[in-house]
């Protein structure tokens, strides 16, 4: 007996201006399965699903739900067809309660009270059925992202969705929250729901999906059974060539100590103690990786080292003391000491999104005599320099006059990297080097970091991606609650031990 697919898309095409986001895409999703859609950033995954959810309108193509052809001109039609979507950036009203968010748009009548009462009862039932625990009366702005995500799933279930689309669901979750999330997915599947999981993480696809479709540059390149494929094959289908999933690197040739941090303390303007007596050092020719769940002091550490957060304690670079509070505690004097910084949030701290690539290349180094002509900026020289940087760092498209926001995440990161690395720093601070960056660019960025290490530079790497820390670092330090939990060598530890340390538990206590 053949079952009709829960969803069938036929020949979907969608263009945004000159950009063809989806080209003639067809896909079948069988009911009661978890179907993964994988592809690099900008491959068109989210666009395709937004079309299915009625958020965008397709230029061409047909949609069938349970074998019946349907029109989905808006989200209301999608909801009526039993489709629910959890967007990558949650669509929640921050200062509403959980209950109000669930009810919004699905009220029973003109008056709120009966709707809220019914939602409260149903939420309780759904929470028991699927393990989706939420506090109905908490404000969204007061709850963590994990619970916010559960609210989004509940919103869909409350609207009787049989098909759930999840766009990059684990991007904002801690490893523990992600584990809980995948248990919820299993429950949903067991209850007969059909799930479409959009992600660029190969591991999630391999561990959770039944079938996987691969997208590349707006086209569907393959649909395969997950059990019959491998991460390497999927990566190749995504990128269109073979990809090194592991970083190849020679043993470190460690030199003299470059960065020495002693008893570093930071209290923020709310009086919260963010860094509590941090001590560590980084030597020339090595990568020190700092692991930890986001928000445990890593950001503050980078900000202090980069010169835009005040602190007490001592930091020396090449034996010279760094000013932590006075007039020389700024980014410019840090750069003068040979410290380069690739900030965690490139869109807020690394680049000015509305400015051109060449302007962004000059930022922080605009005092460079090379960029000056008398009292004027030598814009032509900066543009020339940018063209060279774009070529060497494979920035696409290689157009210095394009605004930073027009580049993909990976290419934005390459612009920041090129600006910082080509200053030939003694110490490179690099935060979340590959956050929101696609596989092809990840490989390139990792190679650049390792190449800099091999030139004998000291590198401080901060990342919440444990895999990245494990594959790049020569030594690993774990931060928890503003403290250093300890150091490990990559060869002598594993994700499990580091994960426990990230939760504030050292080996002795765990046993």
């Amino acid at each position: 007996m053949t079952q009709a697919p829960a969803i069938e898309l036929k020949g979907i095409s969608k263009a945004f201006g000159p950009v063809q986001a989806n080209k003639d895409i067809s896909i079948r999703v069988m009911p009661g399965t978890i179907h993964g859609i994988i592809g690099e950033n900008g491959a068109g995954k989210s666009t395709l699903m937004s079309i299915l959810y009625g958020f965008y309108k397709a230029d061409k193509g047909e949609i069938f739900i349970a074998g019946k052809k349907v029109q989905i001109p808006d989200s209301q039609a999608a909801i009526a067809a039993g489709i629910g979507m959890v967007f990558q950036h949650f669509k929640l009203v921050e200062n509403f309660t959980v209950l109000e968010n669930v009810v919004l748009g699905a009220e029973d009548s003109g008056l709120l009270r009966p709707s809220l009462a019914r939602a409260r009862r149903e939420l309780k039932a759904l929470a028991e059925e699927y393990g989706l625990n939420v506090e109905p009366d908490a404000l969204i702005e007061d709850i963590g992202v994990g619970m916010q995500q559960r609210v989004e799933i509940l919103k869909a279930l409350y609207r009787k969705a049989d098909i759930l689309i999840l766009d990059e669901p684990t991007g904002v979750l801690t490893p523990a929250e992600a584990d809980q999330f995948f248990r919820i997915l299993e429950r949903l599947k067991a209850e007969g729901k059909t799930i479409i999981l959009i992600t660029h993480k190969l591991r999630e696809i391999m561990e959770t999906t039944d079938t996987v479709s691969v997208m590349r540059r707006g086209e569907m390149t393959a649909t395969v059974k997950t059990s019959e494929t491998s991460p390497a094959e999927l990566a190749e289908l995504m990128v269109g060539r073979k990809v090194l999933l592991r970083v190849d690197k020679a043993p470190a040739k460690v030199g003299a100590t470059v960065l020495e941090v002693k008893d570093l303390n930071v209290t923020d303007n709310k009086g919260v103690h963010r860094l509590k007596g941090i001590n560590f050092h980084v030597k020339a020719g090595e990568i020190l990786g700092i692991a930890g769940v986001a928000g445990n002091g890593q950001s503050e550490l980078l900000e202090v080292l980069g010169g835009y957060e005040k602190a007490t304690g001592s930091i020396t670079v090449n034996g010279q003391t760094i000013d932590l509070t006075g007039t020389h505690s700024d980014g410019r004097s840090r750069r003068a000491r040979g410290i380069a910084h690739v900030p965690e949030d490139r869109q807020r701290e690394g680049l000015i999104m509305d400015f051109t690539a060449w302007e962004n290349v000059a930022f922080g180094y605009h005092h460079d005599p090379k960029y000056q002509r008398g009292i004027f900026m030598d814009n032509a020289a900066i543009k020339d320099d940018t063209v060279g940087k774009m070529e060497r760092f494979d920035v696409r498209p290689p157009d210095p006059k394009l605004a930073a926001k027009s580049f993909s995440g990976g290419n934005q990161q390459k612009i920041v990297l090129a600006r910082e690395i080509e200053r030939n720093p003694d110490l490179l601070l690099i935060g979340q080097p590959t956050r929101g960056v696609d596989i092809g660019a990840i490989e390139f960025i990792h190679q650049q970091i390792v190449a800099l290490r091999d030139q004998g530079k000291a590198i401080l790497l901060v990342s919440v991606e444990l895999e990245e820390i494990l594959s790049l670092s020569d030594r690993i330090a774990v931060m928890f609650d503003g403290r250093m939990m300890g150091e490990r060598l990559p060869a002598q530890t594993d994700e499990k031990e580091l994960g426990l340390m990230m939760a504030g538990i050292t080996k002795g206590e765990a046993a």
Partner: protein
Amino acid sequence: MDLLTFLQVLDSTMRLATPLLLACLAGLYSERAGIFDIGLEGKMLAAAFLSAAVAFTTGSAWLGLLAGIGASLALSAIHGLASITFRGNQLISGVAINFLAAGLTVVVAQSWFGQGGRTPQLAGAARFEPITLPFADALRDVPVLGPIYYELISGHTALVYLALLLVPLTWWVLYATRFGLRMRAVGENPAAVDTAGVSVIGLRYAAVAICGVLCGIAGTYLATALQAGFVKDMSAGRGYIALAALIFAKWRPWYALYACLLFGFLQALALRPDVIEGALGFKVNGQLLDVLPYILTVIILAGFVGKAIPPRAGGAPYVKER
């Protein structure tokens, strides 16, 4: 200062607070839905003119009210078209509406009535007359309560009572109805409303239309109740004071009432320098009282009296992200 003088000041506070309150609630609907509206002033002015002109021509204050609401709604439609459909800058659209109203009212008034840009004096049924509440005269001589009932509570026009009723009504709409929930949501995060399958554009137009109706009533009140006819620039910055009151009230209806009463009280005091001198023992410059609402608003905005957080999506046209 005796009780009667005090009651007279409070009575005048009520009358002066009414247009502020109507405009403030108008702004509350619009801004809660995410459309900033500095065109309250212009809408009031247009409504004041057209209501006075129609009331004079027809001899009916109620027809004047309809005309006033119509004038204000027309300007609201322009604001909606510019800022919702064409996604223009809401502040610029509002400023344009204020200029348009300031100029157009005088020009049309001049060509219509030829009295130097004003309408003729309204009298009789062309004005909203004070309503004497039941037993007001009979109870007048009861000590304390009698004068309070007669002077303060009774003897206002219908529009004053309407404005006061709109406060609990607005509160109820905002927090107890589906429309209120959706309207508040669209001012905070329109994408949440859109993905929930509700029209962002429809909600915003509805809110802007309500704003138009309330501004129309406010303007009509100015020309046919508070005063007897339209004169040039008669709104006299009340639209801006209403905006200040809205910020002061942190976009909440009951607080809007208190803020408007406070600002109305300051305006009433400015009209009675003798009362202030009697109470304080020295003269206070009337202009100082006129600027107090703005000074208070600046203090609020600077965060001294708690934080005034505007609706988060306010001022931004809704564009689906790409």
